[in-house]
């Protein structure tokens, strides 16, 4: 058995051991055993993935385990990349779980929740390995079910908030409301993921039927002769299933709800790893199984990607719930990845495999970068939520003094997510822009128009993204605490900081040495019949990104070193001049000491952007004026409420839900309790079958 087989067996074994441990151990030791076992399972998956992207291969088939078709597993470079991603995120999440879930035995530290966590991770590792349609669907559904149950973890027991001076029955009401929100999130998630699954089922089974076999090898062979309409419909169904799982607009309403309401270690796994499997599905279906397809397929992906990127970041910019902001940011990054994938397909269709390889490389590098920094960000957010009990940015602040390690980690993640130069998000965004900026000499009209528009989308997204993350870090962590829970926060336990540190190391590695991923990306591109041409023999230790074919070079290591060196030099030099620094009160216009209420909140920070995008966001405002009893000219209190709804959800989903509700109410008459009616249905069905039999 080669390295991959051994590593995968180890991963599966460790995951099962973690699940068993969570059942067997008592509540004080449960998390401390199950978490590291899950993390080690992730490490094994990383080893397997790394071996696969380095060129090793492995396959496994057994006729048992699944009825009718059995299980078939194969690994190639593309699967290896995603397996590596999933494994790395699992490692971070497993380590994080140890400190995050606590020892209360309820909610996230209960038997059930810790039992499901390794199973969720294992099912995510199964999906990229699948080599036949039933295996893929089984892994997909297992992933969906386990994640759904994990989303529901805190619907009864929210972890206790930081001690408040007057914490009484308001806690119960808050807990009840929180439980309702969790259940609402779970319902949306369940409905949309099952909708995606049905679409996937229909599409993939139809594909298997037309191609004459359920294994991917058979489909690859049989799809060559498929007619364009069938292939197109299959791909569209695949988009509904895979892009819905990835959280692309307009299939996104579940994402902000589920990622915000689930406990943070689950959010990390879902946002950093699970949505990438949607991307994997699209790549596998579009490029590999269906062999490239038609131009309009990729154009649909480009449009969806652009919409997701713009809408996602706009909603993130005005969100005041920290985890909802991160969830919408995931949607935005998925949009950028889909943009890259779409353009890879467009370039491939227009006969430019080099540019296609570059676009694909950009998309894949962004999946890795996003996994790294989103894991870091959600871990940091979970740290904040655990310490302060609130996700509301308007109530946080001042955490830089009470939680310095978390602040540094979150700041590093925010730097990467904002796509600013020393961060790793910048590297993949640079690569994406390079891919868009070189459509090639004989690109058609479509590409000539689409490429600049895509550049505009990427640029707008990047700009608003920077503002979003400045808001998150600035209002959430800096200055003074705005409320008591934030002031009473304490730093997280070491396991959580170690987990964040692991994710941070991954970010640093990817930002300083992206050239190390180029051999893997070339192999994946070659597998999908594209070219990633660096123009010169590759030196394995070359850290920089160099594509001589398009005359683009990026030296992140030098940039980072330059910035750091010069900063230190300037700081040290300045320190030597003049008198020492002293502290004093900030200027308060002579009116007395400044209070925390005078700081800008997240809502006020985002207000200019919200005004600029007023038409897209359509905020709902409510002003309530209470007058003094004696005279209507005097005001005793004014209350202002602003809500920014999800406009796509209101315009697209609420009418659909209304129609379904009306249909359901009308259908109630179908089952009104009359025995005759039921018997009549049976008779009618029997007669219909007989008539059909006669007619045929």
């Amino acid at each position, binding site marked *: 058995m080669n390295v991959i087989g051994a590593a995968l067996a180890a991963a599966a074994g460790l995951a099962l051991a973690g699940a068993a441990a969570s059942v067997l151990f008592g509540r004080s030791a449960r998390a401390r055993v199950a978490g590291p076992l899950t993390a080690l399972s992730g490490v094994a998956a990383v080893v397997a993935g790394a071996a696969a992207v380095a060129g090793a291969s492995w396959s496994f088939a057994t006729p048992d385990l699944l009825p009718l078709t059995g299980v078939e597993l194969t690994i190639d470079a593309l699967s290896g990349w995603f397996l590596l991603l999933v494994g790395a995120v699992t490692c971070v999440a497993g380590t994080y779980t140890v400190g995050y879930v606590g020892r209360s035995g309820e909610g996230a530290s209960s038997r059930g929740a810790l039992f499901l966590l390794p199973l969720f991770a294992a099912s995510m590792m199964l999906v990229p390995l699948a080599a036949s349609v039933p295996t893929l669907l089984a892994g997909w559904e297992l992933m969906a079910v386990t994640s759904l149950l994990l989303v529901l973890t805190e619907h009864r027991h929210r972890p206790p908030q930081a001690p408040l001076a007057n914490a009484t029955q308001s806690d119960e009401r808050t807990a009840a409301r929180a439980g309702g929100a969790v259940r609402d999130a779970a319902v949306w998630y369940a409905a949309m993921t099952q909708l995606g699954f049905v679409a996937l089922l229909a599409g993939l089974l139809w594909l298997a039927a037309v191609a004459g076999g359920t294994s991917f090898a058979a489909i690859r062979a049989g799809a060559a002769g498929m007619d364009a309409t069938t292939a197109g419909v299959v791909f569209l169904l695949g988009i509904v299933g895979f892009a819905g799982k990835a959280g692309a607009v307009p299939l996104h309403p579940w994402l902000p709800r589920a990622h915000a309401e689930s406990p943070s270690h689950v959010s990390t796994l879902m946002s950093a790893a699970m949505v990438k499997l949607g991307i994997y599905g699209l790549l596998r279906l579009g490029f590999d199984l269906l062999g490239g397809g038609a131009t309009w397929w990729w154009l649909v992906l480009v449009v969806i990607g652009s919409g997701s990127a713009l809408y996602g970041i706009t909603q993130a910019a005005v969100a005041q719930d920290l985890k909802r902001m991160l969830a919408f940011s995931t949607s935005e990054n998925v949009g950028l990845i889909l943009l890259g994938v779409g353009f890879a397909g467009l370039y491939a269709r227009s006969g430019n495999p080099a540019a296609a390889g570059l676009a694909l490389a950009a998309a894949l590098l962004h999946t890795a970068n996003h996994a790294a920094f989103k894991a870091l960000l959600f871990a940091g957010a979970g740290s904040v939520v655990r310490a302060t009990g609130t996700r509301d940015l308007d109530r946080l602040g001042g955490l830089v003094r009470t939680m310095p390690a978390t602040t540094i980690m979150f700041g590093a993640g925010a730097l990467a997510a904002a796509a600013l130069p020393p961060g790793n998000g910048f590297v993949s965004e640079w690569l994406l822009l390079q891919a868009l900026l070189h459509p090639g000499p004989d690109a058609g009209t479509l590409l000539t128009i689409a490429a600049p528009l895509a550049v505009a989308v990427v640029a707008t997204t990047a700009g608003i993204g920077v503002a979003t993350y400045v808001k998150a870090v600035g209002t959430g962590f800096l200055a003074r605490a705005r409320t008591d829970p934030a002031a009473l926060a304490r730093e997280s336990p070491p396991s959580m900081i170690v987990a964040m540190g692991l994710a941070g190391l991954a970010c640093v590695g990817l930002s300083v040495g992206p050239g190390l991923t180029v051999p893997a990306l070339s192999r994946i591109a070659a597998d999908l019949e594209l070219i990633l041409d660096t123009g010169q023999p590759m030196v394995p230790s070359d850290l920089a990104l160099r594509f001589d074919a398009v005359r683009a070079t990026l030296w992140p290591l030098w940039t980072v070193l330059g910035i750091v060196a010069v900063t230190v030099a300037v700081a040290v030099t300045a320190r030597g001049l003049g008198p020492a620094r002293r502290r004093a009160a900030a200027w308060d216009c002579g009116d007395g000491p400044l209070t925390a209420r005078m700081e800008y909140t997240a809502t006020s920070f985002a207000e200019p952007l919200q005004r600029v995008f007023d038409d897209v966001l359509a905020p709902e405002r409510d002003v309530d004026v209470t007058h003094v009893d004696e005279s209507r000219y005097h005001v005793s209190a004014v209350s202002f409420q602003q809500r920014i709804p999800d406009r796509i959800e209101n315009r697209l989903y609420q009418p659909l839900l209304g129609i379904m509700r009306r249909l359901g109410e009308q259908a109630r008459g179908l089952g*009104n*309790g*009359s*025995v*005759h009616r039921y*018997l*009549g249905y*049976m*008779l009618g069905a*029997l*007669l219909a079958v*007989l*008539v059909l*039999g*006669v007619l045929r």
Partner: protein
Amino acid sequence: MTRSDWLEQAINLACGLLLLTAVGALWRREVSALIPILSVQGIALTAIAALLASEHPAGAEAVVVAVLVGALKVVVIPLLLRRVHRLVPGARETRPLVNVASSLLAAAGLSLLAYAAAGPLIDASPSPTARATPVGLALVLIGFFVAATRQRAVSQIVGLLLVDNGIAATAFLATDGVPLIVELGVSADLVLAVLVLQVLTARMVRTFGDGDLDDLRELHD
């Protein structure tokens, strides 16, 4: 006439009697009239079974089956039905969902459909009496129709019994004979079903004072 011709004529006669009784079940309004109709149907079915048993190579088992069918359908079931009927004597189908004339037309239509649908069955069957299979299928459809359109609980039971008679007839006519074990199983099921329905009807009469199924319209917790 040869023995097999005479046999075939007798079977056709019995089948005709089956069909006639089925239509009769649709025609008569008084529930008390349904029980003799079912008894006659049972006799016809027993006759078919016995006639087929006389020609059967493995004769002993088939004779036992015929005896079992007779005991069940001529004696036991009508007895049980009389017990149910005694709960609400003098019951009539006053408001059937489909009136009598339309029911009879429907029965004719169902018989035609049964004839058309049974074509493949006839072709696939090894037995020479298979040409009469449509009768069995028609009996099934008419029994279903009775159950679906009649108001009283007793009528529903009668419909179920008609369906069972039809299935039994199809089995006898189209196959090489029903094995004993199958017949035992089916009979046990049927008796059990009728017993359960009897209990439910008694319950209903006790609660509502009448055996009218329309009282069961509203769904309650």
